[in-house]
């Protein structure tokens, strides 16, 4: 599959420093985003440490495929998903250890959302309230579930989704990197289809920009970097209450060689059976 990506991070309109961090590792098709927390500059340290650890561990994939798996993994997962999940566990340990060793870093932490694409297979790993979305069939599908108090209350039927958006407890996380020595990491695998668009974002976007607006922007602007810029600008128009980070990954069919044309042909016929693609 052909992949185009872009990302933007912005301090927003209220905060004085940007504690978000992201990294796009093009050759690996790895995309990592983290939102740090903690007094002074420690949120920045935590999110940078989270992203660096995950990227480093995944970059090592080819050179050292047999690296030890950390945390619980499902046997059916691909080696990449296991690797990614392990990387997030390692990031947690690094932040936790650093905070233990440095008095002034006490209480620092970070969210982490990472996707790793291997042709049509997608690995997702996630802790915290930074989200991964998939735009497909015109709708935005959420691939992560926030580890926040309000989201948990919605899952338990205590709050409705609308009440959760109004809640002043939105910043309370139930899970984050660095809070405890060991954590639970959510990981999953999905199949990607041509024309899928992936979006990773920190809560600075989702707090102020609605999902239909995000979906609309992704459909209207096909350049990943420009689409990310537009979303950040929209969040800033709404007051930019927090740091905003957006990473966009667009997938498309490989170049139109005769072989893919042959493979693609029967699929086009099936379109007459009902509504076509889009």
């Amino acid at each position, binding site marked *: 599959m052909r992949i185009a990506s872009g990302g933007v991070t912005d301090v927003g309109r209220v905060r004085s420093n940007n504690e978000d961090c992201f990294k796009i590792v093009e050759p690996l098709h790895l995309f990592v985003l983290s939102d740090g927390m903690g007094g*002074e500059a420690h949120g920045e340290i935590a999110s940078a440490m989270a992203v660096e650890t995950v990227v480093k561990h995944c970059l090592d994939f080819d050179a050292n495929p047999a690296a030890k798996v950390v945390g619980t993994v499902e046997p059916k997962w691909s080696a990449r998903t296991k690797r990614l999940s392990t990387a997030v566990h390692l990031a947690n340990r690094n932040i936790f250890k650093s905070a233990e060793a440095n008095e002034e870093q006490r209480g620092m932490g970070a969210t982490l959302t990472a996707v790793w694409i291997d042709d049509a297979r997608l690995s997702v790993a996630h802790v915290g309230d930074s989200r991964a979305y998939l735009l*497909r*069939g015109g709708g935005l*599908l959420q691939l992560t579930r*926030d580890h926040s108090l309000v989201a948990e209350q919605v*899952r338990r039927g205590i709050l409705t989704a609308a009440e959760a958006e109004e809640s002043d407890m939105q910043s309370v996380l139930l899970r984050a990197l660095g809070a405890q020595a060991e954590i639970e990491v959510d990981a999953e695998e999905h199949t990607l289809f041509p024309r899928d668009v992936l979006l990773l974002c920190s809560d600075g976007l989702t707090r102020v920009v609605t999902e239909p607006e995000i979906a609309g922007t992704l459909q209207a602007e096909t350049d990943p970097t420009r689409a990310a810029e537009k979303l950040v600008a929209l969040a800033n128009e709404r007051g930019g209450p927090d740091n905003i980070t957006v990473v966009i990954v667009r997938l498309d069919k490989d170049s139109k060689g005769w072989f893919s044309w042959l493979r693609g042909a029967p699929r086009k016929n099936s379109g007459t059976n*009902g509504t076509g693609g889009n």
Partner: protein
Amino acid sequence: MPKLSLMFENKIVKEVSVGTRPVTIGRSPDNDLPVDNLAVSNHHAKVYFEAGRMVVEDLDSLNGTFVNDLRVERATLHDGDNIHIGKHKIKVDASGDAPVPWDSGRKAAAPRIDETMVLDTKERRQMLQQAAAMGESMQFAGTRLKVPTLVVLSGKTDQKEYVLANKLTVIGKSAMATVRLQGWFKPQMAAQINQRDDGYYLGAGDKVPSVNGKPLTGPVRLNDGDLVEVSGVRLNFVFRE
């Protein structure tokens, strides 16, 4: 800066701001917030900042410290909370910037209204218990797990039943689809179901599915017993116990 207002019969008696130093509350006059009442211990409680959040801690008082009517030993405070000590109420105003503990002049502190924080497991349990007690504890207390399931009523698929275990379930001919449609002219990805916080949402793929006979116009939340039709296959969405 965040502040505490000592109220008595709906009047503000005294206000103190919470800075980098703890605010002590008690009957003895050496407290930052003295409360002259026999039900209040000499050194009753203190309020301070820890890792960016405001915390109240009971100092082994005789009659206890209450936050929004819940007796606490130690609790995180939020804007608008009420601390009850004896017959007095202390209103919490956390809307200002949290104090910056280390050499404050170095950098303009970002307003910390929305400061993210993590609940450790003990506090988390308390918070969830409290939330559950607040109402609608039915779903919370019910430990029976409800498993969302798609039962195939008609049409060719690779299984008769599917448990929706992932956040995304793809219905289609694709080898990677969860619900694999069989037969010619079936779309690779006919429709999909997204697990969200408040339920399972059916969305269109290459086809527009219908729920209970109505074609989809946008993602729709599935209810127990709904009938889903897509690309010649009829599926029943049910929650299994």
